[in-house]
């Protein structure tokens, strides 16, 4: 099979088609907008995908359906945008014309003070409004987890979000009205070719297919694979690392497939957290809260489960839960594939069971037995959009009041996401009661020697890990309120 090559990337920027031949692999969308295109509406607040001042919408196709999602332009590489539609705040209202309903709502409710975060909030709310014109407060809060405001205290912004549909009709929004035409335009940009831009230290590749990706990576085993760029983006913006050659993969629809069969779920490595969400909620409802607390909405729209695993972080959000569920991954190098149980993939800090040129192709999450109870607890300094201090995943199987099996994995407690082998052993075969729990709690000291850092002290981590097992037990006993109730009715 000969692969055809294109040496430009093509995307829609607001109302125009852009074609670029000369792009650095480390050029961010934010710098491209502000410096190259003089579109100054989008702001830089942190350059690490945490504050949301740079939020723009990116529309992309999956099975010919076009969806717009909020993303952080500061850590999104321009090279990854082939075939996408980028919508920035600059295009929402004409200088002479009326404001967009989202913008008008923000003005009406006095939702801007210094105004610097405001364009980002407008874009996040616009993305939400198109999908969900009458969102609940908690849906609004979720959409805004990735947007920081230091002035308003947020109440006015929430009031604005609630008022948008009283100002405008989403059915008349240009991106809704024009959806089919734009989708057609984007589809016409997809020619199945491999894109190669630049050379040597300034090189990036968009493979034409997954097979092509496997071939390209095998031939360039030192290449940096970029999926959602929620981590690699920071290698560039914060550590100024050279990452060339880069291989992008989120444009590959094949890698964004989700399959559900009788025994479990398989997620392609390019599936974003947001794309996986409905499946998680349906089949693994115990992971819903965890999923809601991964980054902010922009990060969930960009980041992938595959990337979360492949980068091997000891504080990644998904590995503890996935290990507890018995997940495995399929690694591919060229045409060869092998399957690895997830916990075995993490060897040591910064070291995974992945050969040069080998990549994570998919993640398999099996369903648990009816006798098993699953729980995931993520503990952080701030409830939302924060990185794990301690995260525990539990799958405990019962038979007639006894524990028949226990799989418990923690993040934030060791150099890798790690199972609590001694705790598990203390539980297995034992009666499910407080004495057993306290015996198992003591085993944490054998399993883990956590570190102290700015997220938490070693002492706190160890105590919380123990308490999470206690919580798991209490939840099987159901006495009184044992979790914070974040759904308390909010009157603003």
């Amino acid at each position, binding site marked *: 099979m000969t692969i055809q090559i294109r040496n430009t990337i093509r995307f829609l920027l607001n109302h125009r088609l852009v074609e670029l031949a000369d792009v650095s692999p480390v050029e961010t969308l934010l710098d491209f907008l502000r410096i190259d295109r003089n579109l100054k509406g*989008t702001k830089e607040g942190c350059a690490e995908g945490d504050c949301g001042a740079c939020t723009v919408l990116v529309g992309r196709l999956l099975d010919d359906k076009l969806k717009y999602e909020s993303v952080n332009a500061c850590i999104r590489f321009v090279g990854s945008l082939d075939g996408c539609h980028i919508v920035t705040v600059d295009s929402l209202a004409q200088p002479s014309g009326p404001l967009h309903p989202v913008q008008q709502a923000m003005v009406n409710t*006095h939702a801007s003070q210094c105004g610097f975060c405001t364009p980002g909030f407008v874009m996040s709310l616009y993305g939400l409004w198109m999908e969900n014109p009458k969102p609940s407060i908690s849906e609004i809060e979720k959409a805004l987890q990735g947007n920081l405001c230091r002035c308003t*205290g947020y109440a006015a912004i929430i009031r604005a979000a609630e008022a948008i549909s009283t100002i405008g009709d989403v059915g008349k929004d240009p991106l809704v009205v024009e959806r089919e035409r734009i989708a057609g335009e984007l589809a016409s940009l997809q020619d199945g070719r491999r894109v190669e831009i630049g050379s040597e230290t300034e090189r990036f590749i968009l493979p034409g297919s997954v097979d092509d990706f496997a071939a390209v990576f095998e031939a360039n085993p030192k290449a940096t694979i970029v999926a959602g760029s929620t981590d690699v983006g920071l290698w560039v913006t*914060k550590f100024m690392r050279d990452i060339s050659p880069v291989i992008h993969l989120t444009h590959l629809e094949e890698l964004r497939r989700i399959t559900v069969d009788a025994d479990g779920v398989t997620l392609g490595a390019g599936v974003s957290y947001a794309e996986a969400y409905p499946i998680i909620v349906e089949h693994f409802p115990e992971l819903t809260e965890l999923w809601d607390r991964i980054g902010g909405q922009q990060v969930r729209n960009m980041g992938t489960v595959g990337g979360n695993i492949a980068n091997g972080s000891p504080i990644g959000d998904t590995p503890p839960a996935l290990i507890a569920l018995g997940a495995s991954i399929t690694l591919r190098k060229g045409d060869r594939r092998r399957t690895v149980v997830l916990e075995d993939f993490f060897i040591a800090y910064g070291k995974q069971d992945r050969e040069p040129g080998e990549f994570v192709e998919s993640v398999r999450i099996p369903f648990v037995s009816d006798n098993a109870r699953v729980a995931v607890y993520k*503990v952080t300094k701030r409830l939302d959009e*924060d990185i794990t201090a301690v995260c525990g995943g539990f799958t405990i199987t019962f038979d007639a009041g006894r524990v028949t099996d226990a799989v418990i994995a923690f993040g934030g407690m060791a150099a890798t996401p790690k199972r609590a082998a001694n705790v598990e052993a203390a539980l297995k075969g034992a009666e499910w009661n407080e004495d057993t729990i306290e015996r198992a709690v003591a085993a944490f000291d054998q399993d883990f020697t956590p570190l102290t850092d700015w997220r938490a002290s070693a002492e706190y981590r160890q105590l919380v890990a123990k308490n999470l097992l206690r919580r798991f037990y209490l939840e099987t006993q159901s006495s*009184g309120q044992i979790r914070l109730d974040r759904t308390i009715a909010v*009157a603003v």
Partner: protein
Amino acid sequence: MNVMQPIGRIRGAVHENERHESGHKHVSGTAEYIDDIPEPQGTLHGYLGLSQRAHADILSIDFEAVSSSEGVIGVLTAADIPGENDISPAHKHDEPIFVTDKVEFHGQPIFAVVATSREAARRAAAKVKIEYRDLPHVTDVLEAAAANYPLVIDPLKLERGDIEAGFAKSKNILQGEMRIGGQDHFYLEGQISFAIPGEDDEVLVYSSTQHPAETQHMVATVLGVPSNAVTVNVRRMGGGFGGKETQANIFAAVAAVAAKKYRCPVKVRPDRDDDMCATGKRHDFHVDYKLGFDDEGRIEAVDAVFSARCGYSADLSGPVTDRALFHADNCYFYPNVRLRSRPLKTNTVSNTAFRGFGGPQGMVGGERMIEEIAYAVGKDPLEIRKLNFYGGEGRNLTPYHQTVEDNIIGRIIEELETSADYAKRREAVIAFNRENHVVKRGIALTPVKFGISFTKTEYNQAGALVHVYTDGSIHLNHGGTEMGQGLYTKVAQVVADEFQVDLDRVKVTATTTGKVPNTSATAASSGSDLNGMAAANAAQQIKARLTKFAAERWNVAETDVVFEPNTVRIGAERLSFNEFIKIAYGARIQLSAAGFYKTPKIHWNRSEGRGRPFFYYAYGASCSEVSVDTLTGEYQVDRTDILHDVGRSLNPALDHGQVEGAFVQGMGWLTTEELWWDAKGRLRTHAPSTYKIPLASDRPRVFNTRLAEWSVNREETIRRSKAVGEPPFMLGISVLEALSMAAASVAEYRIAPQLDAPATPERVLMAIERLRAAARQKG
């Protein structure tokens, strides 16, 4: 001459809910911040090179890799500074732009790279090779004291009554200590300056600064030119909160030095992480207190030392630690009192102004003392608060000998207790805690009294410039800066109201040292108090000239010349404002005026610790209820009710926003915002990924904010309003106190929880563990 019916009212008068003058631009991305200003061709970019040691001698610096890096034009060091290598706002000469032989904190600027792009400058700066010889360093307040580190500035002592006698007659004496963390401003727009060189010695600097006059002065000093050569402009900041009061100066100075040296426009904008490492923050405090009180909980004597982590230089630490002492009494009368500040030097970034300016730390210390007494005598802390409020014969004198004359805290508390249903909810919380062993609740109602005026008396002055053009449109300029607080909107409302024209006839233009000179920082909540009065004064001067002219021309008494909505009534006749202005111009009436204001009544003698530093006080109270997970220490604020005093509000909608925003920012300071230095003296919480300010989902689940609509400033402030910037920040204290109560529940409320700030989930959990252990011991 038209005879017309008067229009009912002007649009955008004072006391109305006018929208922020830039609101429509904020939402459409067209509000221009300094990084958005079109760059002239040839614009260069500067980037600071920062120390990688907390305290060390610099043995050598090798710039070769920097200079040969792509796009680099040059490197600036101390040797390139034509004037003084110092920007100490305290005039202590302790704050170099670039250090030469010794670094005193991790992140201290050593040099700057100038290159053709910001990216090139930043990458080049990282390539420097510096040889250091490490010296012992201290980042913590108590360690600094133990290591005999010096004070960065003279301390303050406030004393009243007889402290020894006070303790002698106290039935109960209690001692304790508290740690209160600092806070990063986290303005969304980082520090930035853009300098454009002019003729001769001139330079124009766009700076994201709250204090253009000082920035101008610093740039002039650093360049070695008179102030008249330097113009500093700022249209708006993307947030300031005190973080751009003095901290903008270095970026302006470096941009200006580079611009003059290379004769090109130069922009300097640090990355967020470098911004957070290299610029000052709210001071961390340690409070050492001794209390005397009777069995009812009435305070007899207070002796406290407030030690502050000031960082390596004085900056504003003097007035900041002073203000901590000024607010350690909050709303409470201390019959015998001694309060001392200890502004300690540390090997950390020099701490600076931040909303409340030390006042919040003082007040948190005061509220800790109240809490201690409450647990000691076994009462609701609110009872102890009420028992000790200022008021009554001989109970109105503050520790600095100013008499509290405008006390309205009693009414505020009473109204809030009712509207928040405090008593019933406290009972419900206690009942809930009896039934539930994992989730515990807490509720607290805390007051605020905050003194308004700069304690540096000379800062309490302001200027404004008003032009009326021949078409009747009005140009307004004043010394205050816009950082989101709505100052431009409010002052424009004042001017529109003076002339009785619709608000859209008034344009506020960018703050610039070229139009209004020698201005004070937009700080200390003073913006609308000072600039509103100065602008009103300018408008009144023009009106007086117009009135005199009209009286002469139409031959009526001056009292028969009245400015009515968009018209001027002269005797029996009525002209449109625009028409009248045209006639006045034709008659050669001066249609421009410079206004001025200075705050009356205030005086302060620091060495004696006596005076009237504050023109008046602003009051408020908040009631917060929280839920705490006692397995992890995680928590949420279930409900907050606020009643806050802004006098007769100039703009209730904007003031409402200030109160809500300040509360959430104050709550963040006391909960999840934690500054954490490692053993090497590096700040490790230097980005939003590690430093956690509140999110939308952190705001109280139920959040009721009201302004005390009945309040009128008894002093003659602008339209009897009160300042709003800082006072509501301290409403966040109710969250800390509520968390504290939830923790106390695990020991049946018998032990003072002594929950320090910030009350991160970790600190809350550890307090709970400590209380459980203590309760077990007590049996």
